[in-house]
């Protein structure tokens, strides 16, 4: 016999102003199954909760309905209260008479009737509620970090610090990411390598961190606490164990003309190479597409010169299958292609470069040894034009509609670096708006203007006309309306940032979502910024949206904490509202399994007696740890053999009936 207790909250005056509580109380008393009802001003307060707890015991209640605010607000509060009183928390239902009633209706009589109706539906459902016990599942106490830029390195270090194992997977031959390419960092102008390389070394030295460079994640299945991941370790053609990083092979390689990815194509590298001298691990790879040995079968110089016999042309890709409790995605960003911005001549003129190329040109370890010179004729540039928002805030099909966030600051930095190197040079910055929201940012940008005399022009460049040895920049100062023509020696474009081209594939592989620009979506833009909708998968860095280094690092640490939260538990509790199969009526058609987005339903053969023999019969079976409780399977099942606990066919029909009374 169900004994339902109904608790009606006034929510101060939030509910009671529009809903006649007395009338609801009278109606509730007459509802079938209701053994007790009580109203109170603030049911969620400590007194209110105690009221619920005490009455459960006093009146021997075995089902609870709380008519109050949205279940999204306080369902868990009241479930805890019920549990404290010895009742299974899933025997409780909430009637939403605030957000869905008192707050949206003005007519008191109508609102009161609706409150009664919603409460009646909750009572009808509660009567059919069953005790649900969440399953428990063990946790693989190891984390996977995908992407070895500053975000990935920081996350890995923090997780390792907490005492858990971390695997860090990086696609390129070295960790370091975009930050390793940068020269100085705003707003302090400290050297990027000086603050990054120690972290890279820490990551490689940590006993808790395994680096998988030149590797990619290929397949992910499973769920929070128990992800199963296949990692492809691409053939490096160099034995990691034997190589000492002496670098002889690099020097002797006869191929010298491959474009260096790390140097943004501004210099060349051999076919066997490390991306940059401080690479971690300091073990070269052979770029099989340019290597003569792989292309023609002749050569083999590196193998001959290697003192430790580490070169191995026969090395094959290897697939590692590993298990993880949590995954952190830190895959970073790219700059957009400038093919369609022909008016800036980037594709046609060597002295028009991107901001990232500028970083390499001013870097002491860069292709020019830190001498800032024009790529075309190796001369010092005297006049440099910087153009911001190249493709940012651009909703046409060649750009990105968002603000890339970092360009205002790095352009100010570039202009100052130029002036530092060549005090007699001139710097012009074309901008739409200067955005300097960040600690010390505004001061930094103003320093460029006030102390360095960088010429900031609010306006855009129409087109660059290359003349014989200048770049004639045609622009406008929109404030004065003056049309400008600057004969520049070099132009630096702040190209928009974009999500990695493979982001959509990564999202699909991980079952997380992306926004319309292919940046990964966080679970909540304000309150859950590093979580995804998929439990156990977290985000950090520019793969979630344009970000600078301080923000990236902060997010990386936040994501690490979230991951540690999972890893530190010995068991995880599931949502018990999962599907279950009534095997006695299941026809085994497995339409449910086809539809399930989590592959939680599989075929099972049950043995049954038929015609005097034991025979196997195919039925569906739900893996409760995989099932997320969407209930989509229940609709594929015509006879209703598969049903969703907590939202069963019977319960929902009872709600419909009750609402329509």
């Amino acid at each position, binding site marked *: 016999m169900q004994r339902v207790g109904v608790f009606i909250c006034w929510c101060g005056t939030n509910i009671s102003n529009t809903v006649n509580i007395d009338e609801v109380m009278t109606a509730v008393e007459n509802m079938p199954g209701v053994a007790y009802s009580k109203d109170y001003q603030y049911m969620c307060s400590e007194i209110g909760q105690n009221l619920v707890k005490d009455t459960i015991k006093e009146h021997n209640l075995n089902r609870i309905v709380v008519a109050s605010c949205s279940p999204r607000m306080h369902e868990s509060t009241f479930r805890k209260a019920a549990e404290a009183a010895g009742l299974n928390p899933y025997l409780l239902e909430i009637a939403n008479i605030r957000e869905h009633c008192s707050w949206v209706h003005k007519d008191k009589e109508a609102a009161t009737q609706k409150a009664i109706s919603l409460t009646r539906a909750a009572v009808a459902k509660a009567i059919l509620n069953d005790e649900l016990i969440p399953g428990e599942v063990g946790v693989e106490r190891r984390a996977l970090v995908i992407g070895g830029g500053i975000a990935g390195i920081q996350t890995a270090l923090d997780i390792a610090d907490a005492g858990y194992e971390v695997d860090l997977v990086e696609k390129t031959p070295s960790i370091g990411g975009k930050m390793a390419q940068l020269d100085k960092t705003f707003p302090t102008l400290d050297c990027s390598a000086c603050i990054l390389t120690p972290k890279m070394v820490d990551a490689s030295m940590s006993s808790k961190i395994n680096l998988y460079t030149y590797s990619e994640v290929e397949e992910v299945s499973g769920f929070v606490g128990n992800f199963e991941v296949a990692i492809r370790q691409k053939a490096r053609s160099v034995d990691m164990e034997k190589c000492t990083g002496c670098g002889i092979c690099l020097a002797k390689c006869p191929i010298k003309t491959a474009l260096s990815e790390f140097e943004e194509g501004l210099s060349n590298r051999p076919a066997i190479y490390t991306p940059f001298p401080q690479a971690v691990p300091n073990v070269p790879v052979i770029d099989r597409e340019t290597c003569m040995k792989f292309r023609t079968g002749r050569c083999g110089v590196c193998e001959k010169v290697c003192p430790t016999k580490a070169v191995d042309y026969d090395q094959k890709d290897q697939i590692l299958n590993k298990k993880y409790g949590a995954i952190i995605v830190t895959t970073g960003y790219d700059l957009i292609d400038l093919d369609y911005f022909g008016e800036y001549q980037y594709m046609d003129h060597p002295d028009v470069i991107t901001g990232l190329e500028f970083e390499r040109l001013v870097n002491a370890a860069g292709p020019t040894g830190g001498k800032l010179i024009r790529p075309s004729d190796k001369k010092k540039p005297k006049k440099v034009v910087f153009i911001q928002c190249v493709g940012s805030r651009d909703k046409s099909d060649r750009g990105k509609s968002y603000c890339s966030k970092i360009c205002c600051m790095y352009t100010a930095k570039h202009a100052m670096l130029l002036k530092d190197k060549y005090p007699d040079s001139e710097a012009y910055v074309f901008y739409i708006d200067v955005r300097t929201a960040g600690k010390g940012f505004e001061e930094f940008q103003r320093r460029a203007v006030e102390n360095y005399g960088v010429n900031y022009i609010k306006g855009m460049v129409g087109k660059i006309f290359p003349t014989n040895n200048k770049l004639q920049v045609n622009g406008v100062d929109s404030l004065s309306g003056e049309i400008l023509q600057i004969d520049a020696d070099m132009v630096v474009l702040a190209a928009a940032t974009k999500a990695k081209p493979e982001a959509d594939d990564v999202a699909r592989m991980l079952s997380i979502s992306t926004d319309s620009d292919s940046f990964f979506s966080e679970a909540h833009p304000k309150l859950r910024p590093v979580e995804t909708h998929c439990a156990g998968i977290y985000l950090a860095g520019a793969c979630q949206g344009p970000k600078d280094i301080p923000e990236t690092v902060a997010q990386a640490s936040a994501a690490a904490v979230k991951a540690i939260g999972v890893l530190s538990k010995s068991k995880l509790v599931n949502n018990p509202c999962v599907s279950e199969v009534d095997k006695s*009526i*299941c*026809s*085994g*058609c*497995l*339409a449910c399994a*086809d*539809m399930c987005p989590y592959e939680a339903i599989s075929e099972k053969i049950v043995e*049954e007696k*038929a*015609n005097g*023999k034991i*025979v196997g*019969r*195919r039925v569906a079976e739900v893996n409760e740890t995989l099932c997320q409780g969407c209930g989509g399977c229940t609709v*594929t099942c*015509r*006879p*209703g*053999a598969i049903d969703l606990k907590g939202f069963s*066919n*019977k319960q929902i*029909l009872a709600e419909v009936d009750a609402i329509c009374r």
Partner: protein
Amino acid sequence: MEKIREEIKEKARQALASKEVDVILAWEKGELWYDSYPAFFTKEKDIDSLVWDSFCVNNLSKYLLEYTMTDKKIGVFVKGCDALAFNQLVQDNRVSRDKVVLYGLPCSGMVDPDKVRTKNLNQGLTEIKKSKDKLIFITKDKEITVPAHEVYYDKCLHCRYPNPVTYDQLVGETVAAEGVLDDSVRFSGVKELEELSCEERFEYWDGQFSKCIRCFACRNVCPACSCKQCTFDDSDLEVLGKAREDSEDKFFHLIRAYHVAGRCIDCGECSRVCPQDISLEKLNRKLIKDINELYGEYQAGLDPSAKAPLGTYKLEDADSFTVGEKGGKKREKNSKR
């Protein structure tokens, strides 16, 4: 037909003798002239009573459900429509393909006893012979020839798959798909209704549904209705009451049609067996038409490995409810004002 009948018997005998199969599922002559009912044969000697005539309209594929709980190998004779039904049962995981040997029977149509009676051709009828597109009704003392289409079932006149779409062995020769009609004819009944006003449509269907006596013959004969336990029989959930009540009749018919959506092979058996002559095919075909229009042409039972239209999706799917938005209702083509 007579020649093929002997071939069939021979095939059945051999199959049992060679232990190719344990059971043969075919037809057997009943007591009445129009009665050719499904029968299981396990012994060679029983094959003599096996029949193949103009009344073998019953779809044998669904009877395979009787054998889902055995490991016996079954040989079954399938006409065009039966083969579609068979594939559908395989797609629904209700029958294992490897436990069945299919003997395909091309079929140009089956005779509707009602039409025979109306023409008074049943008096003393001993046999019906087929000669091209005519049927010869033979009695003791005379022979009457009538054009076949005058006595075939309506559903056979519009048959799109007279030859089995799948089989292991074909018996007899394929027949020309004369009755194959384009979709405009197939869906003409649906289109006529669609063009009526909402009230007219309601009146039509209210009239149809209120005839229903809920005998469930439509469900029982349907090869897409293969559930172990039908939801309409679920006494615990009770989605459908027992009372004769208009709303329950409507509920039954809408849900029945909806449950076979994307799986209905359009064999017309439901309408054929309906004792109240409810035009069930117009419900089924509405769903087929909508699926074709919204999600691309689909014929249930053609490919057992295909994904059922309601069991899959495309990212760019259209819908019928968000007008004006992306993926919205298809614009009426060429509307001249």
